[in-house]
Every structure is written in structure tokens, then in C-alpha cells.
């Protein structure tokens, strides 16, 4: 019983930092409608800045003063980030801002590496709180008790700020209708910056406050972000009490998970999230997202059309050129092009549900990696011939999409995105922790293609045929009646329903198709590399695909393919440099700010402008 209580107290203490970070994310999302992926980076900065300050400032005052100063410093960094990166793109499609925040993650990762180095740092102990107190005979760290005591005050302070002050009232009003708040004389730009600064400061505080229990390392940003998203989604986006309840729930669960189910700690959290969202789709204290809210304005889309004869001729010429490459190119070029095609197919499948279906999936890697693992597992454990195992990749990914889609399709917007993320994390943690079957992070190796394909040129043609075939097939579907129904459901779900389209079912089918295609890409991938590791299922993999689609241009059909080519090429070149993340982050941020329609979108707009002026001068 005493042990049970001590465990519970540890969980509560862990909840303090988690709640701080989650409430910051929730606050930022509520007002700016931006899902700030860089929030984990602010948490990491908080930890590093905290350690540095604690080294400089002495004693009790120094320790607690350092924590407060860290909050301030990270708040300022957050404000600068908002002003430089996000302010220029508030009018761009919401999800574009996501990609920008992803760029910020990369930049901060490398900056932290430059400033603090690659070594993990152990957090200093809080002065005067080094030992333990015994509670019913069980030792509980003093610092834990202090954290538990502080948390309610933080919750109260935030609650007071949001419900009782003018700033809080403005924040809540802006959450509902930013444009109207502006029309009433409030400078939204500063309100946004202020909220972003406050949210970042909370993340920074969280990072500094957890120091005596942990430390600072360069993986903190990704490690916390998954957890924080889970907390915010379980609690309900934009709800502070919800974030508090969920932070406690997840932290306590983690502590008990470590004790009783050490093999499944990672899975547990996502299982809880999936259960909560199935019962309460908008989180414990969240509310349904009203469709068609004010404040989002965008110019209507230009309808997409199938390629005309010129387009078909160009594409054919391009594919033909690719087919001729093995005649003269070296092997590494072939490998690079195979990578590009695999990534292009993966991106095209994401683009299919994202651009055409309007379903933003944050967990598309589940199907890519799922397909790769399915084929690899068959080969590894049963020695299935490659041809059969390969076919199993899209099949298994399709079945996985059938299962995941059943839960996710019912939701929309951010909640859909989050639930797909959760499921992909679930798949990832299975691959990572179910060592008996998947060998964990040792990966599955020696997964080579069949004899007749096991040479660079044959495998190249194999990839070229399946990759371009898959992409052309997806394009074909987009221009079929099914594609029309999908687009109708994206642009106006109600209107589509009224016309007799079962929107959810169409989306479900599209989700599965996208899963199959991602699985196909995964299948090619695993046989081209000869191995597979849990990294193909990571959040980063899903994000890479998202970034590629956005870089290429969401609203254009060729976007995913062009973006994938661009990204693979740039990455191949950049990763040779030491601080490649910094550069890649800056490239992403500048593309988002300078080319809000993506590469293809911006080029075609430019092209239209040039032709348009030509026509006018002729007249």
C-alpha cells in the first residue's frame, strides 16, 4: 500500500513538468490554431538554459531564480520565433505553419548542439532538497513533494490568468473569432505574440523544473513532444483543466507501467489515448470543433485537371529518360534514384489523402514502415520467397489502414491528425519493444530481393515500374468519379452528403488506398536496403513525408513527387555537412515564407502570370 502511494506520488511529481509544457501547447493552439511542433524544442531549451543559469547563480535563490529566468528567456525566444517565422504566414493554410514549426525544431536542435555540445547533461540537485522524506516508510524524494505542492498553484495561476484578466478574456475571444477581436480594436498580432511567448515560457519552465529529476539532452524535444500531444489531445485541445487531468493520468500511468509492464511503457500511453478518443473524440474536457469558423481566409482553389497531351508527353519523356539512366550511370546514382522513387511514392500516397482528401495524417509512416516490416518479418522468420513477401507489404499496410482508419476517420482536423500520430507511435513502439518478433532496434537484416532482381539495374527497373505505376494509378484515381467524391467531401462535407455521397466511407476507402500505396513503397524500400529498423516508423519519417508534400505544394498534383525529389537530393547533399539540420531547417522555413504555395504551386503561378501578361500584351 505504501509502495503504491509512493509510486503515485512520483507520478504526480512527473506530471508537474508535463502539465506546464502541455498547457503552453494548448494555449498556443487555442488562440493561434497552430499545432506547434517546436514546443518540445522550447522545453529542451529550457533544460539547457536552466543548467547554464544554475551553474552561474549560487544557492537557493540562484536555483529558483534560474528557473524563473529560464522561463523568461525561453518566452523571449518564443516571441522572436513567432514574429520571424509565423507572423508572415498566418494567412497561409493552417498546416503550412506546422511545417514551419518543424523547420524551427531542426534549427534549434543544431543551435543547441553548437552551444551545449552533444553530451547529455545531468541536472543539478535542488539546494536543500537533496534527500528523501519517508512516507509510510517509503522514500519519496523531497523535490518530488515540492513539485507536487507547486503544481496546484501553477494551475490556479493559469486559470486565474485565463478566466479573470483582460488578457485572458481577449485570448478566449480570439480563440473563437480572431477577426472580430481585431475589428473591435485589439491588435491581434501582439496578442498572438504574447500568447506564443507565454506558451513557450511555460515549456521553458517545465524544462528547467524537471532538471533535478532528469537533465538535458538533445533528444528531449522529440521525446517530450509525443507525450505532450497525447496529454493535450486526451485532455481536450485548449482546455487547461483537461491538460492537468491528462498530465496526471499519463504520468501516473507511466510510473506504474515501468514497474509492472516494463516492456510496454511506450505502448501504454498511446493505448490510453486511443481509448479516450474512441469514447470522447474531442478529449476529456474538449469540445467539438465547429466547422467553418471565422478568421480563416484563403483564395479559392484552382481546380486540378488531368494532364493534357503536352503534360503526358513531358511525363513520358521524363520516365523514358529515367529508364535510360542505368545504361551510363554509376551504381550510387541508381541507388539515389531508387530512394527518390520510393520516397516519391510514399509522399504521393500521403498527398493523395492530404491534398485530395483533406485528411491530414501525422502518422503515415505506420503504413510505409508497416509494409516494410510485414515483408521483412515474413522473410526473416519463415524464409518466404521475396516475390510473395513483397506482395504482402501493400496487403498488410492496407489491412493496417483498415484497422487504424476505422478509429480515425470519425474525427477530423487536428484530432484526426493526432489520432493517426498516436496509432503510428503504437506501431512504432511495437516494433521497438516487441523484441522477440521484431528484434527491437537491432532491426531485421538480410532481407534481400530474389536472385533475378538482386543487381542494381534489375532492381532499378523493378522500382521504376512499380513506383511510377503507383503514382500514375493514384493520379488516375484522383480524376475518377471516386476522386471527385473525395474532393467534394474535402471542400464541403455537408453539401457532399446532401448529394448522396457517404463522405466518411469515401474517406475511409481513400485512407486504405493510401495505406496500400505507402506499404508498396515500404516493400520496395526494405528490399532495396536489405534491412529495416524501427526508425522507418518514427514520427520523423511521417514528418518527412508531410514536409515533402508541403514543400512540393499541397494543392498541386505533382507536388509530392517534386518535393520528394527535391528533399532526397537536398538531404543527400546536406547530410554531408556537420550542421545540416540547421541548414535544412532554414531551407524549410524560407520555402514556407517565400513560396507559400510550395515549389510546384509557386512555379505554376509564376508561369501563369508570365503567360497572362503575354496574352494581355497581344491583345
Amino acid at each position, binding site marked *: 500500500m505504501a509502495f503504491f502511494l509512493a509510486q503515485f506520488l512520483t507520478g504526480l511529481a512527473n506530471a508537474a513538468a508535463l502539465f506546464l509544457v502541455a498547457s503552453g501547447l494548448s494555449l498556443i493552439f487555442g488562440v493561434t490554431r497552430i499545432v506547434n511542433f517546436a514546443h518540445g524544442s522550447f522545453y529542451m531549451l529550457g533544460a539547457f538554459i536552466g543548467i547554464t543559469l544554475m551553474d552561474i547563480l549560487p544557492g537557493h535563490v540562484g536555483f529558483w531564480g534560474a528557473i524563473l529566468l529560464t522561463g523568461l528567456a525561453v518566452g523571449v525566444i518564443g516571441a522572436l520565433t513567432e514574429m520571424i517565422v509565423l507572423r508572415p504566414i498566418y494567412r497561409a493554410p493552417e498546416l503550412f505553419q506546422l511545417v514551419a514549426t518543424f523547420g524551427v525544431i531542426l534549427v534549434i536542435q543544431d543551435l543547441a548542439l553548437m552551444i551545449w555540445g552533444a553530451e547529455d547533461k545531468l541536472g543539478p540537485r535542488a539546494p536543500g532538497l537533496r534527500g528523501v522524506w519517508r512516507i509510510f516508510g517509503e522514500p519519496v524524494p523531497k523535490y518530488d513533494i515540492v513539485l507536487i505542492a507547486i503544481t496546484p498553484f501553477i494551475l490556479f495561476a493559469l486559470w486565474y490568468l485565463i478566466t479573470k484578466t*483582460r488578457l485572458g*478574456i*481577449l485570448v*478566449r*475571444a480570439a*480563440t*473563437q*473569432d480572431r*477577426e*472580430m*477581436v*481585431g*475589428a*473591435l*480594436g*485589439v*491588435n*491581434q*498580432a501582439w496578442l498572438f505574440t504574447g500568447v506564443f511567448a507565454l506558451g513557450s515560457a511555460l515549456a521553458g519552465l517545465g524544462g528547467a523544473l524537471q532538471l533535478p529529476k532528469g537533465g538535458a539532452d538533445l533528444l528531449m524535444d522529440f521525446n517530450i513532444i509525443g507525450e505532450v500531444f497525447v496529454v493535450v489531445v486526451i485532455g481536450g485541445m485548449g482546455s487547461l483543466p483537461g491538460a492537468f487531468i491528462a498530465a496526471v493520468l499519463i504520468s501516473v500511468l507511466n510510473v506504474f507501467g515501468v514497474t509492472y509492464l516494463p516492456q510496454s511503457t511506450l505502448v501504454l500511453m498511446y493505448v490510453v489515448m486511443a481509448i479516450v478518443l474512441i469514447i470522447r473524440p474531442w478529449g476529456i474536457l474538449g469540445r467539438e470543433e465547429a466547422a467553418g469558423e*471565422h478568421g480563416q481566409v484563403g*483564395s*479559392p482553389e484552382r481546380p486540378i485537371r488531368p494532364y493534357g497531351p503536352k503534360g503526358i508527353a513531358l511525363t513520358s519523356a521524363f520516365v523514358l529518360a529515367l529508364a535510360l539512366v542505368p545504361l551510363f550511370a554509376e551504381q550510387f546514382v541508381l541507388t539515389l534514384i531508387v530512394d527518390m522513387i520510393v520516397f516519391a511514392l510514399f509522399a504521393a500516397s500521403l498527398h493523395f489523402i492530404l491534398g485530395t482528401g483533406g485528411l491530414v495524417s501525422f502518422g503515415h509512416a505506420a503504413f510505409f514502415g508497416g509494409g516494410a516490416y510485414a515483408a521483412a518479418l515474413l522473410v526473416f522468420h519463415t524464409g518466404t520467397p521475396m516475390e510473395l513477401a513483397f506482395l504482402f507489404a501493400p496487403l498488410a499496410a492496407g489491412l493496417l489502414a483498415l484497422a487504424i482508419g476505422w478509429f480515425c476517420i470519425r474525427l477530423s482536423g487536428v484530432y484526426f491528425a493526432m489520432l493517426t500520430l498516436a496509432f503510428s507511435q503504437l506501431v512504432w513502439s511495437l516494433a521497438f519493444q516487441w523484441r522477440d518478433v521484431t528484434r527491437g532496434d537491432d532491426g531485421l537484416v538480410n532481407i534481400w530481393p530474389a536472385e533475378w532482381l538482386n543487381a542494381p539495374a534489375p532492381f532499378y527497373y523493378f522500382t521504376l515500374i512499380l513506383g511510377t505505376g503507383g503514382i500514375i494509378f493514384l493520379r488516375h484515381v484522383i480524376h475518377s468519379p471516386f476522386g471527385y467524391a473525395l474532393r467534394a467531401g474535402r471542400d464541403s462535407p455537408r453539401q457532399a452528403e446532401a448529394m448522396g455521397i457517404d463522405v466518411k466511407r469515401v474517406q475511409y476507402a481513400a485512407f486504405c488506398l493510401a495505406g496500400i500505396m505507402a506499404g508498396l513503397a515500404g516493400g520496395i524500400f526494405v528490399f532495396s536496403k536489405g534491412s529495416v529498423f524501427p526508425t522507418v516508423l518514427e514520427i520523423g519519417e511521417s514528418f518527412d513525408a508531410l514536409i515533402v508534400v508541403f514543400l512540393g505544394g499541397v494543392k498541386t498534383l505533382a507536388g509530392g513527387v517534386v518535393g520528394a525529389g527535391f528533399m532526397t537530393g537536398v538531404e543527400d547533399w546536406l547530410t554531408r555537412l556537420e550542421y545540416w539540420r540547421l541548414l535544412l531547417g532554414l531551407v524549410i522555413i524560407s520555402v514556407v515564407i517565400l513560396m507559400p504555395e510550395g515549389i510546384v504551386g509557386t512555379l505554376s503561378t509564376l508561369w501563369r502570370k508570365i503567360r497572362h501578361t503575354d496574352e494581355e500584351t497581344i491583345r
Partner: protein
Amino acid sequence: MLSVEGIHSYYGKAHILSDLSFEVRRGEVVALLGRNGAGKSTTMKSVMQLVRPRKGGVTFQGRELVGEPAFRVAKCGIGYVPEDRRIFTDLTVLENLEVGRQPARKDAPHWTTDQLFEIFPNLDERRANRGKHMSGGEQQMLTIARTLMGNPALLLLDEPSEGIAPVIVEQMAATILKLKAQGLTVMISEQNLHFARAVADRAIIIEGGEKKFDGSFAELEAHPEIRDAYLSV
């Protein structure tokens, strides 16, 4: 006080207002009349800079507004009451008023919540109620009160009588006259000619985004063909 000169406004590619010009003088109540889709709301939004005119100018008390963000237009002393009300449904009546609060202005009447509750007694009883629990008429009063908290010198009222019970419409007319007596300048867009005549000194009629008539109600009466052509009766 307000002068709109040859503005052209668009929604995407749709040309909504073309070469629209008019004046609003200090202390008067002007009615902007026209059918559904004539461009009344767009006119109001173009003054507020919620829709940015691509050509032409909007000057208020000698200051050019085109290109300014909406919040600065509001700070110049123009209060905007949108047609679809847009009250903050999760906020209480008092909180809604707080969002609208701005410092006092020399050239405009100054409002406190107590004064507003005198004018809108229904709101007084519902101070702590959330916006979503109020009737359409109460919401309309709340949105006007909220805008008045900004102490505007010019009030833009977009179709205040729309979708409201006739009794409340009469109250609304009385309220507008009260506001005028306080020294407020008002521009009101309407489809209801009867209501407009009851409160306004002058009528501007637009159709298809162009001005068709600008004059007193007496003049309008003298030309029934204008009324028949541009207003649904």
C-alpha cells in the same frame, strides 16, 4: 467625417463594389439600402478594412484608412457591428463587453457598462450569462453594446433588424435615435425601408455594387420608380 472615394472591392475574382463613393457627415444617420447581394455588407467591411479595396480611398477625419489593419481602423474611432453578430458565445455578457473596451475619446461619447445596461436593460439581467444562451435579439443588443464599449465616433451597423422580432426592431429604432441624440454618427445598412426611414436622415441606395441614389427620404418618396427598381418592396 467619413469619405469613400471610388472604391473597388473584390472577393477573390468576384468584383463586388465598383467605383463606389459617398460621404457621411458628423452627427447624421445614413441608411445604406439595397437588395440582398447588392454589396451593403462589403461596403461596411471595406470601410473597416476587413475587405481591402483594390482601388480608391477611404478617409476618416482626414486619415487614409486603406491598407491599415482593422484594429487600427477601430482605434481611429469607427465601431463595426457585423451582420452575423459574431458575439463570443463562450464568454459572458460582461466579458463580451470587456473585449470591446477601449480608452475614452475626445470626439465621441464615452460609455461605461452601467450606461449601456441602462440602454439595453435585457443585458443587465443577463450579465453573467454566456453568449450562446441568449436569444437573437439579445445577441444583437450585445453586439451593439460591445462595439459601443470602444467609444466610437462613427458606428457602422450592418442590418441590425435582420432576423429579429418586430417588437425588438421597434426598440432597436428607439435605441438608434437615442445614440444619435448622444452625438454619435451612424451608418446603417438595411433592407427594411420602413425601419430605415424611421431612424435615418438620408438614404444611399446601391445595386450590383454601384451607387444608384443618394439623397433625403423626401426625394426618394418623390421618385417611386427608384424604390421599385432597386428595393424589394
